[in-house]
Structures are given as structure tokens and as C-alpha cells.
């Protein structure tokens, strides 16, 4: 790097965003106001029948609003500064026109730094830089407009604390990895297609149903509003249903689901790349919005991979790498800090795992659940619903009696599913790793290292005391691992072993 650029990338002085930031801020403000005002405005226009004055007033007030917003954007741009205090190891962002806020982030609390670009930012040619921090109070910082070179260097500097440390401890590894510039993993169009065909049926189905209901509602509103004779339409629809056989409809639905799946996959994972950097993985993807995530291995809490029957045929695996999420350790959704690798083969999986965990984990001693596991599930999913169904059909709703035969295929399907769930519910334990396998269709392996455990719970229902059966719950910063119906003596000894390991090991969990 030359001296001139060195000065340019000196972050010790407070500096502003890219000038294009004004545009971004303006657009953001505009978007917010439009969102807030759109509905009431439309209502006002629709409700009041007279046209002339109202339109004028609206246009004038809109113009005024735009001017105010422009000024506001300009001044927010002027007041938004950020700088890096290398001595104190702090990154400081000052902002606000009327009420000033100063956000201080300690570098060692930084969890990850993301560089993203949305559509508008792509047009203007700037990026946004987001800083995720560890800490129970939510303190996230975003710089909305920054050019790519500055962003990359700032990102490196923000994460430099770790890198300095790691370079000291393991100079050989970092030297070796720097040379490798070609991506560790790159998804081709072909792979993306395969991923689209084989995964996420559930999500697409939901999306599709939502979409269909949405259009139906819209259609109804439309016909209501315009007082079109709906009978024509319903007649056409009815004729349509008799026309197409149900079979055709089913095929159509499958095609649509697969289509949306493929499109979604392409939008989300187009040009998906993983690049090895100094002791970190840089992951980028996206068709319209570029997503850039830097993953530092020691911050990973839980790695998981899953595969279903079709994916197995294609030699495809889905990987999820979970980092500590402080706001949502309990929630299943909102996994912002999760990183998903939609498709890789076993070799690539091993390479990524090797990068994160330092070695490729092997399944250790196997723990099987007790047969009681399947017993309770049978009660919940087979015995109880069938009892309700039979009772309803005999006493309350005689119409249901015609469908009593459904019970047989239901028992068969659910029985097979429960059997597979039982067969796949396993815990593998060895010195370095805890691996939990689970799933019915998608078989998932969740891998954690014992020193990432936050707390351990052993639980036993009193009627299981004699059978020596109990449950194990491992709490990590990225969620919970639950092993059910295990041998309780064994579980207790594992709890003792892991507490010993955590308390003896000098490794920190982050």
C-alpha cells in the first residue's frame, strides 16, 4: 500500500461517510415516510370525492416534505462521523442533529463485520458496513454509505485485534493460508439448480400458499370494488376445476414449488463463494444484494450439516454455521448471525469443518435413546388424534364416519416417520466433539465442542426413575441441544465429564 493511500485509510481522525451517503439517507427517510403515510393518504384521496384543491395541497406538502428531508439528510450526513481509537481499542460513531448519540464499541466485543449492498446502494456505488457486537444489550452499528476499498480496510482494522493475536500464536498457518486466493468453495449454476430442486420444500409451500391467498383476496377486493359480476368468474373457475383433473393440478403445484425454490435459491445464493483468509472465512453471495460475511472460527458456537434422501443422491449437503446470538438464543428464527452454506459435497464439508474446528470430527461413542422415546411419540401423534377422531365420528359428527378408513394410511405414514425419528435420534460423544443426529426427512448433524457449552441440564421425570431414563440439555450461545430418553447414569457421568472439561480447559468459548 502506498503512503498516499495509507493516509486515506487512516481512521484515527473522525471522518464522514461517502458523499453519496446523502442520497442514501434521503432515500431511506423518503422510504420511511412513504411507508408511514401511504395508507392514510390513499384513504384520504378515496374518501373525499372532490379533486382540485386536495391534489394541490397534497402535491405542495409533498414537495415541502421532500425539501425538508433533503436538508435533514444533508445535516445527518454532516453530523455522522466515525473513527477508530487504536489506543483504547475502540470504534466510535457519532451521529444525530438535534439529539446527539455517541456509540462506542470495544473492538474485542465485535462479533462480526458485514459489508452489504442493496439495490439503491448498488446504483450509487456504495456499500453499507454493519457491526455486530457481543453483549446482552443490543448495540448494533451501521455505516450506510462507504466505498468498497474503505469498507474492506475498515473491516480488517476492526477485526485486527483477533488477527494480531492469531498471527502471533500460529504464524505458520496464517502464512500458508494467505497464499491461497482461489475460493475454497464456489457454487456453480448447476449446483444451485440441484439445491433448488432438493431443499426447502416447506418454506416454498408456505410462500406459495401465502401468495395464492393474497391473490384470491386481492381478486375478491377488486371484483367487490368494481362491482364486476363475479358469477362469470366463479363459473369459469368451476369449469376449470372439472376440466383439469386433480392430478394435473398436483403436478402444476409441484412445478410451481420447484420453480419458486429454484428462483429463491438463485436470488439468495447466486455467485456464492467462500474464500479462506487469515484464519477466517469470507463468504459472499446474492444476486441483487451482495452479502458479505466474515466468519472467525473461534466465534463459531455450533456447526451443523443436514442431508435428505434426494440430496444424498446428488452428493449435496446443507451446512449451517451458528455464531453466538445474544438476542435470540432461544428463538428458532431470526438467525441473522447464522451462516448457511446451501450446497457442498462431503469433501468440501470436511474442509470447512476442518477450518472451523481444527480437525474433522468423527462420530464418537454412540448413545441411543430408550424405546420409551417412540412410546410417548406414538401416544401424542397416533393414539391421541385417532381417539379424538373416532370419538368425534361416533358421537358428534357422523359425516366423519365415511373417512374412518383414512386412519390406516395415517397410522402407516406417521408410524414410519416416528420410527425414523427414533432411529435417527442419536448422540455421539468423544473427547473433542459432541455430535447430535436427528431428523425425519432432513437428517441433521449438530456439532459442538465441549468448551462451547454454557450450561448443562440433566432432567428426569419421576416415573422414569426406576427405568434409569432421563434427558440431557446442553445450552450453548447458539441454541440448545436436546438429547431425550437416554440412559440417565450415562447422562450424569457425561455432565460430570463436561463440567470437568469446561472447568479445566483454558479455552474460552469466544
Amino acid at each position: 500500500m502506498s503512503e498516499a493511500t495509507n493516509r486515506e485509510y487512516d481512521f484515527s481522525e473522525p471522518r464522514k461517510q461517502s458523499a453519496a451517503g446523502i442520497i442514501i439517507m434521503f432515500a431511506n427517510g423518503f422510504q420511511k415516510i412513504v411507508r408511514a403515510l401511504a395508507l392514510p393518504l390513499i384513504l384520504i384521496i378515496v374518501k373525499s370525492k372532490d379533486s382540485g384543491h386536495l391534489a394541490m395541497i397534497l402535491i405542495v406538502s409533498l414537495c415541502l416534505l421532500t425539501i425538508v428531508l433533503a436538508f435533514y439528510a444533508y445535516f445527518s450526513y454532516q453530523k455522522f462521523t466515525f473513527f477508530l481509537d487504536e489506543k483504547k481499542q475502540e470504534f466510535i460513531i457519532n451521529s444525530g442533529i438535534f439529539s446527539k448519540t455517541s456509540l462506542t464499541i470495544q473492538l474485542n466485543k465485535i462479533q462480526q463485520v458485514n459489508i452489504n449492498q442493496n439495490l439503491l446502494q448498488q446504483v450509487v456505488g456504495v456499500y453499507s458496513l454493519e457491526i455486530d457486537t457481543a453483549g446482552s444489550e443490543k448495540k448494533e452499528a451501521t455505516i450506510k454509505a462507504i466505498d468498497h476499498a474503505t469498507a474492506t480496510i475498515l473491516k480488517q482494522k476492526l477485526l485486527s485485534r483477533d488477527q494480531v493475536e492469531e498471527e502471533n500464536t500460529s504464524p505458520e498457518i496464517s502464512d500458508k493460508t494467505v497464499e491461497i486466493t482461489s475460493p475454497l468453495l464456489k457454487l456453480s449454476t448447476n449446483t444451485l439448480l440441484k439445491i433448488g430442486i432438493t431443499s426447502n420444500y416447506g418454506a416454498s409451500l408456505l410462500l406459495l400458499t401465502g401468495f395464492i391467498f393474497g391473490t384470491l383476496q386481492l381478486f375478491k377486493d377488486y371484483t367487490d370494488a368494481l362491482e364486476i359480476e363475479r358469477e362469470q368468474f366463479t363459473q369459469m373457475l368451476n369449469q376449470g376445476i372439472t376440466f383439469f383433473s386433480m392430478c394435473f393440478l398436483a403436478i402444476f403445484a409441484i412445478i410451481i414449488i420447484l420453480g419458486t425454490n429454484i428462483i429463491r435459491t438463485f436470488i439468495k445464493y447466486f455467485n456464492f463463494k467462500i474464500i479462506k483468509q487469515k484464519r477466517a472465512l469470507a463468504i459472499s453471495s446474492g444476486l441483487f444484494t451482495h452479502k458479505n460475511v466474515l466468519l472467525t472460527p473461534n466465534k463459531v458456537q455450533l456447526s451443523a450439516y443436514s442431508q435428505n434422501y434426494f440430496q444424498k443422491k446428488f452428493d449435496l449437503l446443507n451446512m449451517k454455521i451458528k455464531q453466538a446470538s445474544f438476542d435470540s438464543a432461544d428463538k428458532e428464527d431470526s438467525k441473522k448471525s447464522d451462516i448457511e452454506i446451501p450446497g457442498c459435497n462431503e469433501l468440501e464439508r470436511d474442509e470447512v469443518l476442518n477450518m472451523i474446528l481444527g480437525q474433522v470430527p468423527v462420530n464418537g461413542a454412540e448413545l441411543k435413546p430408550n424405546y420409551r422415546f417412540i412410546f410417548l411419540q406414538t401416544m401424542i401423534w397416533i393414539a391421541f388424534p385417532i381417539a379424538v377422531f373416532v370419538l368425534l365420528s361416533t358421537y358428534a359428527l357422523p359425516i366423519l364416519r365415511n373417512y374412518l378408513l383414512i386412519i390406516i394410511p395415517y397410522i402407516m405414514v406417521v408410524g414410519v416417520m416416528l420410527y425414523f425419528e427414533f432411529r435417527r435420534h442419536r448422540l455421539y460423544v468423544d473427547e473433542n466433539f459432541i455430535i447430535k443426529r436427528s431428523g425425519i426427512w432432513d437428517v441433521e448433524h449438530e456439532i459442538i465442542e465441549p468448551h462451547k457449552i454454557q450450561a448443562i441440564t440433566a432432567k428426569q421425570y419421576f416415573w422414569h426413575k426406576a427405568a434409569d431414563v432421563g434427558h440431557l440439555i446442553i445450552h450453548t450461545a447458539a441454541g440448545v441441544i436436546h438429547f431425550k430418553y437416554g440412559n440417565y447414569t450415562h447422562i450424569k457421568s457425561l455432565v460430570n465429564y463436561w463440567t470437568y472439561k469446561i472447568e479445566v480447559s483454558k479455552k474460552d468459548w469466544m
Partner: protein
Amino acid sequence: MKEFTNETLDTGSLPKYEEVPLNSLSQKYWNVMLINIFIFLLIVGIGITAVLIFNADIRAYLYIILGIYVVFALLMITLYRASLKKRGFAVREKDIMYTSGIIALSTTVVPFSRIQHIALDEGLFSRIYGLGELRIFTAGGSSGSLHIPGIEIEKAKSIKELLMKQINEAD
């Protein structure tokens, strides 16, 4: 990986959490529980009375409702009494554990090095009896944190001090 050792570990000789004698919660906490149960029952009772006053049809079932109410109250008191006996905590050299539950008895162990922060709460009724609730948070979210109620406030404070010291040493 310089000082890597891998001696054989006799897992049977590791300290066993299940054999640690537990400190039971303060007997005074039973009073706090009773007050809470009483308030709850009072509110439910007021609700039932209001329904009975405004709806004449239901008055025919007065005795059944009363019976259910009494059974429910007794059940609640016995269950809470049983749960108090089951609850207990222990502080070891390197971790803290808490046992609770009536139907399912569960024990959670939190190593000191994984504690994020600690809070000591004094509820209104707890304060009357000089009790406090220790809340120990980990990065494992709410499922991975401990809530130990009914500890004498002095004891709770000293435990908190001890834990704070341990956390700071770990850093």
C-alpha cells in the same frame, strides 16, 4: 498446541454433581410462596364471585364450583410445598448448580467461567422476610440461566460477591 497432553482420564473418579449435598431454600420462602398463592387464589375467587353475581344460571352449580375451587387450592399448596422440598442449590469450587421440579426433576450446572452477569432481586414480599433471588445469566439465553429464589439476603450477597470475584479472575 505446544503443551498438549493426553493422559487417560478415569471418568469414574470425577467429582459427581449428583452426590453434592444441596442447600435447600430458606424456610421463610414458604411464607412468600403462601402469600403469592393466596393472592392468586384471591383474584380467581373474586373472578368467580363476580361471575356468580352477574349470571344467575350458574348459581345452581355453586357447590360444584366451590368444591373444585377448594380442591384446586389444596392441590396448589401441596404441589408448591413439594416443589420447595425438591429445590436446592450448591456452589462448588468452579461451578454453581440448581435443582428444581416436581414432575421432572432437573439439575442445571453453570461453570463460573461461563457466567455473563449476575443480578440479585428483592421482591416486595421477599424483602419482608429478608430474602432475595439470585439470577445468573450465561450466553445460553434464558434457557441457560439460573434463577434461584428464596436465599437469605446476606447469603445471596456473599454468593454474588464470590461469583463476581470468580468472573473477574477468569477475565
